């Protein structure tokens, strides 16, 4: 029937995804090392399957259909000083590597602690890895971690924390990411600091308002299509 209704419907559901993404960013505004999701919608020839010809008079309206995509904004979060020796923040690029059963996952949430077996672990108990993908053991009382990740325990060198660059980044929850390693990262490790999320409340609110107003507008267009249908049925053909 009216393709307009279906076009506006996709627009509305994309706005819904956008508000979902904003809500997730806002929910994680206080999550250590969280990287915000940026939603972007684009025009997509979803229904017509025909490429857009610029300047052509005959353009299929369906080409206007929205389709969304989303990426992880890896910009720096706010650094906060805590003076706790196991709090590590990364200034610049890079991710910490942690082991979850037989997989290596990545995180920016550097609020670590030491477990009963002296391993350096995340708050969820995952072991943090060194350059050679071995878990880091911290056995001593005075722990110093240099900006390049070198660990000194009671003054003696004890390995180096792994910091990697990642491609194909993907959120998997629990402040962890999946990705493909792309060499050593150049970020610096700051001991006694943690990185807050990089969610900016102002821009999220603006985005939320935009999404809602857009949703409203699209709804009105849908209503217009509905009215058109109503007229066609009840007014044009009076039988």
């Amino acid at each position, binding site marked *: 029937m009216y393709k307009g209704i279906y076009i506006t419907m996709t627009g*509305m559901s994309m*706005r*819904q*995804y956008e*508000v*979902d*993404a*904003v*809500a*997730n960013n*806002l*929910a*994680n*505004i*206080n*999550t*250590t090392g*969280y990287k915000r*999701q940026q939603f972007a919608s684009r025009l997509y020839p*979803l229904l017509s*399957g025909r490429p857009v010809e610029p300047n052509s008079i005959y353009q299929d309206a369906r080409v206007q259909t929205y389709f*969304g*995509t*989303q*990426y*992880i904004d890896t910009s720096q979060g706010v650094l906060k000083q*805590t*003076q*706790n020796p196991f709090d590590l923040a990364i200034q610049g690029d890079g991710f910490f590597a942690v082991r979850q059963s037989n997989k290596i996952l990545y995180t920016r*949430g550097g*609020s670590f*602690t*030491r*477990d*009963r*077996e*002296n391993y350096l672990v995340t*708050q*969820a108990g995952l072991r943090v890895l060194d350059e050679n993908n071995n878990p880091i053991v911290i056995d001593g*009382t005075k722990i110093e971690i240099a900006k390049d990740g070198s660990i000194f325990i009671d003054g003696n060198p004890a390995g180096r924390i792994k910091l990697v660059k990642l491609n*194909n*980044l*993907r*959120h*998997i*929850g*629990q*402040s962890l990411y999946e990705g493909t390693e792309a060499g050593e990262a150049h970020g610096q490790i700051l001991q006694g600091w943690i990185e807050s999320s990089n969610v900016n*409340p102002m821009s*999220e*609110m603006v985005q*939320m308002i935009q*999404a*809602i107003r857009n*949703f*409203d507008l699209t*709804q009105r267009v*849908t*209503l217009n299509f*509905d009215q058109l249908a109503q007229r066609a049925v009840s007014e044009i053909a009076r039988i």
Partner: protein
Amino acid sequence: MLRSLFTAATGLTAQQLNLDVISHNLANVNTTGFKKGRAEFQDLLYQNIINPGAPSDDGTQYPTGIQIGLGVRPVAVAKFFTPGDLVNTGNDLDLAIDGDGFFQVTLPDGTIAYTRAGNFRIDKDGRIVTNDGYPIEPGITVPADALKITVGADGTVTVLQPGTVAPVQIGTIELARFINPGGLQAIGKNLFIETDASGTPVTGAPGTEGRGRIVQGFLEMSNVNIVEELANMIIAQRAFDINSKAVQASDEMLQTVAALKR
């Protein structure tokens, strides 16, 4: 129905927990030997609408796909055992630990609890006890006629009795140390008990193996920093506010949808 509504609800719950922890810290700002906590959060699961790397219609791959996060969850209230300020009280039985380590006290049921609060007293039987009457472990009994009690940095407790000039040793205070003090379970009354996460206590004389020295006549205050807590409180409150806005926004969208069909 609307995902964002539930996502925002997890945000509200998380910030409420955050405020709970901050309030507890502030309530104990003047509690001897109190150690502050910090709520730690993680993002929840992600729903993959389009898997990253899925083939697109044009024969290319979606580099990121659409992953919708479902909110936030608290993962830990981490305890921080950074030292509190030492305050001079001049009281013989006020003891502070300069370094890591815990005093050991025996609970009425016989288990050993650990504390950083060194405000000890003498009960009617002459035992050195906490303010709740729990005796220090190993137990030390002070003779009734003791004139002055001296506690050395190494934990030796000596008393001066009338008619003598040489102090007499009546016991030694031992300290316990944990690999992961953050894993200790707080049971109130300034006490902690051992858990599977903390590791087993390593006891010994003060000043050895990283166990701190004992300082007599001093008390360790809480390690709560009011300025920091108030800043955290403001952040938590604003985060709560902003999540309630997300609930409002979701509500508005639902209203709009409902208005579609008249």
